[in-house]
């Protein structure tokens, strides 16, 4: 019933005399027929300084996030920090060289972190086992992932609702949300004085579906102390 009603309204809105009123009515009906479990409930939280990089301001469950550029590791940790702080577990697959102190400074809760270091041949099965059991999976492969494995992992993610963050090399079948650090400049260090304090980066976003719209963000990553920080409030 409600659907038919909505369609009728939509048809004669085009050249009706009271367009604004009818549009308001249409919105009301659309609101009424919307599913009860909204897509925004199937999301994980994102760190406040990074929300504009994600469509809807939150991390949709079941997506692959690709991060690249100089500073990709930092960005991956910052993305993982949001859900981790909210109680999710994080798993690094292959990232035994990721600085744990840095992970902690970025906001990843180390008590809820697993680091798995499988042989290249055991990678797909290890990632598949983690999907559904931990919410955030950060991978940093040193070998090429096969396209078939990537597809299988992608469909399992959509089914089980975990999020995979792939550092560095391009996700073979194209990431749902792709974030690249295109420019970075360190602050706090001079020539022979100071110390590394924070890094001002420009992140370019792309991806598929709702994330396809190009977007860009300037942010301090790492900010003072490690966690990402909006640029304006520091300057």
């Amino acid at each position, binding site marked *: 019933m409600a659907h038919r009603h909505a369609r009728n309204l939509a048809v004669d809105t085009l050249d009706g005399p009271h367009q604004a009123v009818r549009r308001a009515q249409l919105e009301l009906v659309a609101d009424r027929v919307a599913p009860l479990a909204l897509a925004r409930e199937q999301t994980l939280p994102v760190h406040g300084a990074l929300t504009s990089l994600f469509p809807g301001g939150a991390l949709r469950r079941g997506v692959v996030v690709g991060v690249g550029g100089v500073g990709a590791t930092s960005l991956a940790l910052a993305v993982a920090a949001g859900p981790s702080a909210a109680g999710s577990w994080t798993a690094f697959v292959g990232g035994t060289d990721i600085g744990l102190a840095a992970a902690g400074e970025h906001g990843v809760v180390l008590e809820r972190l697993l*680091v798995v270091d499988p042989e290249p041949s055991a990678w797909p099965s290890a990632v598949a086992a983690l999907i559904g059991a931990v919410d955030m999976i950060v991978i940093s492969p040193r070998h090429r992932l096969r396209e078939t494995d990537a597809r299988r992992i992608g469909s399992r993610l959509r089914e089980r609702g975990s999020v995979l963050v792939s550092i560095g090399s391009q996700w073979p079948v194209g990431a749902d949300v792709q974030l690249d650090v295109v420019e970075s400049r360190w602050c706090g260090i001079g020539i022979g004085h100071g110390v590394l304090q924070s890094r001002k980066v420009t992140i370019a976003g792309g991806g598929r579906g709702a994330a396809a719209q190009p977007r860009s963000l300037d942010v301090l990553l790492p900010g003072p102390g490690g966690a990402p920080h909006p640029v304006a409030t520091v300057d």
Partner: protein
Amino acid sequence: MIAPVRTLVAWCPDWPLVATGVPLDEPSVVVFANRVIAASPGARAHGVVRGLRRRMAQARCPELSIHDRDEAKEARLFEPVVAVLDDITPRVEVTRPGTCALVSRGPSRYFGGDDAVADLARARMAEVVGGRTDVRIGVADGPFAAELAARGAAPIRVLPPGTTAEFLAPMNIDLLDRPDLTGVLRRLGITTLGAFAQLPANDVLARFGREGQGAHRLASGLEERLPDARRPPADWSVSAEIDPPADRIDRVAFVARSIADELHRRLGRDGVTCVRVGIRAETEHGEELIRFWRHEGMLSDAAVADRVRWQLDGWLNGSAVTRPSGGITSIALVPDELIAATGRQLGFWGGETEVDQRAMRVAARLQGQLGTETVLVPEFRGSRHAHEQLTLIPAVTVELAGRSLDPGEETAPWPGSLPAPSPTRLLLDPVVVEVLDESGAVIEVTGRGLLSAPPARLIVKGQRKVVSGWSGPWPIDERWWDVEAQCRQARLQLVTADGRALLVVLEAGVWRVTARWD
């Protein structure tokens, strides 16, 4: 006071191991969530007992073979063993795979006494078990005492009516399997069930609540819960027709899951919950199989679906004699023992949550799949290098639940450590580089901790990079008193023109990149 129901419990020792199919005299264990849940006699001879961590068990017995728990297989293999009791009584209750119970009053009248029933049950079960393990039978007032009698039986033990309290009195209080309660009782000096039973029931209820009251009743040889006068009305059972008849288990389990949901809704509406549920399956030719399943907590819909799967798996894939001749046409769930639902409180702050349990299960699974040294967790250790204050250790060596990495006040400050942000990538294999000044000479650090000239270029694997910012050097002179362990270093933070930041360390005249900020 109403005496508990005479109950016969049949127990097959080491059933989880029998299900794996390994001979029991070899040292082998079954682990679940990284804990030993069953150890073979061969393993027990080496001191491997239930509750040990996997790594501890391996330390005590290096040639131990380790198997993961497969509850579905345990239940499937147990079904034919239980099926032989169907001729004795129609109401056999599977407490868990390996242990089953039946109310012995009716059968013992028919067969002429508890001893006769116990002999008959043991003979029939032993035939099916076929020497894979023993069958022990205990008969007592109430299932708790009967199970303890079965565990101590050789191989049959029948306690005369009314002697249950006497039998339980010298037993260890830990047998109640309520660690929180027995911990307190132990500190009060109460170590046996008899001593606990002597406490006044009203005081136990006042101090320890419903749970304490239940434990006290068990220790006194009574039923755990006061018998509820309410009989479950017939319409609390839920059933579903399956059309066309299903010959595959997963279809039946799927239907069972949805009716389990319905059952919980109905029970929940009336504020009750069931601790025992009967699962009745019927085939198109009128064959029927009913089993009762008990659960300590509340049976969730997933748990009910699991039990349906186990029960039917054993039936449909059983021997030709007991296997049904047609597909399954209907399935029903019959709530049997009802208690008032008091609710279960999960941890609010801290404690174990569902999320933690899932992560711990996957950690245990990956350890089995990939080896224990590939699944790691962070651990704190001191170091003068901020980024080395945390290290990775195998997850098997720690308890994952409720960990805290905060070193607390135990650690003193580490002078000379660099402030945050810490480098995001540590080079496991430090790369040798050349740090050069404007004129191309290699930079040195003087004995007083000063650079010979400002760094201007960096050569990494043959590539020249321009240094756009630098800071340091921060010298470290560790253990200068020890010729072998001493470590004398100078550290520099370098930023190259392409925006990369590196930590370079000079030691013994060689510059190396040890970490970078990616």
